[in-house]
């Protein structure tokens, strides 16, 4: 008996013990897995962060041809009051020339107002083009100084390494001169 102690258990008990251990082990593994979830989940946005996710913007002070930057969810949103020429320029481009084909009409709710998230879709820099003195790039929209992506007056990528157009956030006109983002 003393010898058997240091050895694995006798043969007849073997399968039953293996099975038990398997069940107990799987149970414990499920438990450990389940308890990992609260930890992972706690790093997702908290309820107060999710709650404060709308921003109201008054459009009245934005003159034709100029733009403002507002913060939504900690990100810049470009709101541009486009001139007729700019709208025309955006709409006259054949879709086949675009890297990420999308008609201008699908990117705006009212022709003159373009609302896009002002983050270059390449690696997250903020493109230039908001201030009148900024360089706007060869397509009259925005130009990202980090790696040279150029966007047109519809915020679509026309040149450079960025893969997609500037994203359009979900927003709605709450009145003729006011929009709510989020």
């Amino acid at each position, binding site marked *: *008996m*003393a010898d058997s*102690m*240091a050895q694995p258990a006798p043969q007849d008990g073997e399968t039953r013990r293996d099975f038990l251990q398997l069940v*107990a082990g799987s149970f*414990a593994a499920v438990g450990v897995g389940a308890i990992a*979830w*609260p*930890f992972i*989940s*706690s*790093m*997702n946005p*908290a*309820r*107060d*962060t999710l709650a404060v996710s709308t921003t109201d913007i008054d459009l009245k002070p934005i003159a034709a041809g100029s733009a403002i930057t507002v913060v939504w969810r900690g990100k810049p949103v470009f709101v541009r009051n486009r001139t007729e020429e700019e709208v025309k320029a955006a709409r006259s481009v054949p879709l086949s020339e675009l890297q990420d084909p999308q008609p201008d009409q699908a990117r705006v709710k009212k022709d003159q107002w373009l609302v896009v998230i002002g983050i270059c879709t390449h690696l997250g820099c903020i493109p230039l083009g908001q201030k009148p003195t900024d360089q706007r790039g060869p397509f009259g929209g925005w130009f990202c100084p980090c790696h040279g992506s150029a966007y047109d007056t519809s915020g679509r990528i026309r040149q450079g390494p960025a893969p997609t157009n500037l994203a359009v956030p979900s927003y709605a006109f709450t009145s003729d001169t006011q929009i709510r983002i989020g």
Partner: protein
Amino acid sequence: MAIGLHKSEFKNPVIRWVDARLPVFTMVQKEYGTFPTPRNFNYFWNFGALALVNLLIMMATGIFLAMNYTAHTGLAFDSVERIMRDVNYGWLLRYAHANGASMFFIVVYIHIFRNLYYGSYKAPRELLFMLGVVIFLLMMATAFMGYVLPWGQMSFWGATVITNLFSAIPFVGESIVTWLWGGFSVDNPTLNRFYSLHYLMPFLILGVVFLHVATLHITGSNNPLGIDPKGPQDTVPFHPYYTAKDSVGLVVYFIVFAVLVFFFPNVLGHADNYIPANPLVTPPHIVPEWYFLPFYAILRAVPDKLGGVVLMFGSIAILFVLPWLDTSPVRSMRFRPLARPFFIVWCVAFLVLLYVGGKPPEEPFVTIARVCTAYYFLYFLVILPLLGRLERPLPLPESIARPVLRGGGPLPAGAMSKPMEKA
């Protein structure tokens, strides 16, 4: 050790490749697989493993809480409540962390009780024991600083009272307290440094735990009989015997933990700590967390400021010399007919101190605290040294396995508990 690749005995080529270069698999196999462990542990021997698991739970929940906590006097309280309300499962993390501290002390107190009862502190495990006392001290410091972080009334006044203990030091006391505070009262600098240290110290504890376990694996474990294993018949490999046994204890531990966290999350805390800190108003009854109460009672038992502080720290410092105060060669109290009742009285005195520590400093609690404090020290300084000479221990069993071997077959349950009758 010779230079060159380790000769690994693992079959899996990847494990073998790593093991040859860094023999961690061999080490784990040796220390937690085949490690020869006395075969007669009772469930008290679960508590070391439980304490390690508890430390890891505290570190995990703490790291995730830190992602949402703000260490600023104006924001800390609300940031903790934001964790409770808005962070996904934040309430679970915080309640697990707060009650985890209590669980940690319950586990460690039982671990220390087991150590004292079975004489595990005696040669050759003195250093192992002293490292354990270091862990205990670090734990207390960590717990104290952690309790300050929610910046409630008890946080603030606990921090004020405990840091003021250092003002009892002659000449430099006041300067030390100012240095601890980083100002002229417990304030934002204090909160910031406590947060920093509270985050750091668990890693120090983990380091000392590693040394504690390393020391344990040099001497091997003590056991309920307090006699050394005489050969392979006295031991079993750690795995699967003690991994299985520890698992049972672990689940029971988790059940107790879960009952606290999910059904009584605030029962061990204090309501006043849900009132934001107010430096102008001290709550009528200020008490530390329950796990500090025995030492708090010792502090208050002494009418002199410096004396109280010295005795309070002395009550833990005395443990460092315990292996030399107890001169009896017999480890387990099972074979010490005189020491055993004295020790049980000591345990009762400790629990009574815990009780009166939470009571207002008035009669009869002051007298009770003084009597218990006196006995606390008497036991270590007088009773144990004397008993080492005067006591006639019961005859020890020849070996751990002997009662079983002599029976020559399966014995009825309970045979192992009375080895002295067999010997």
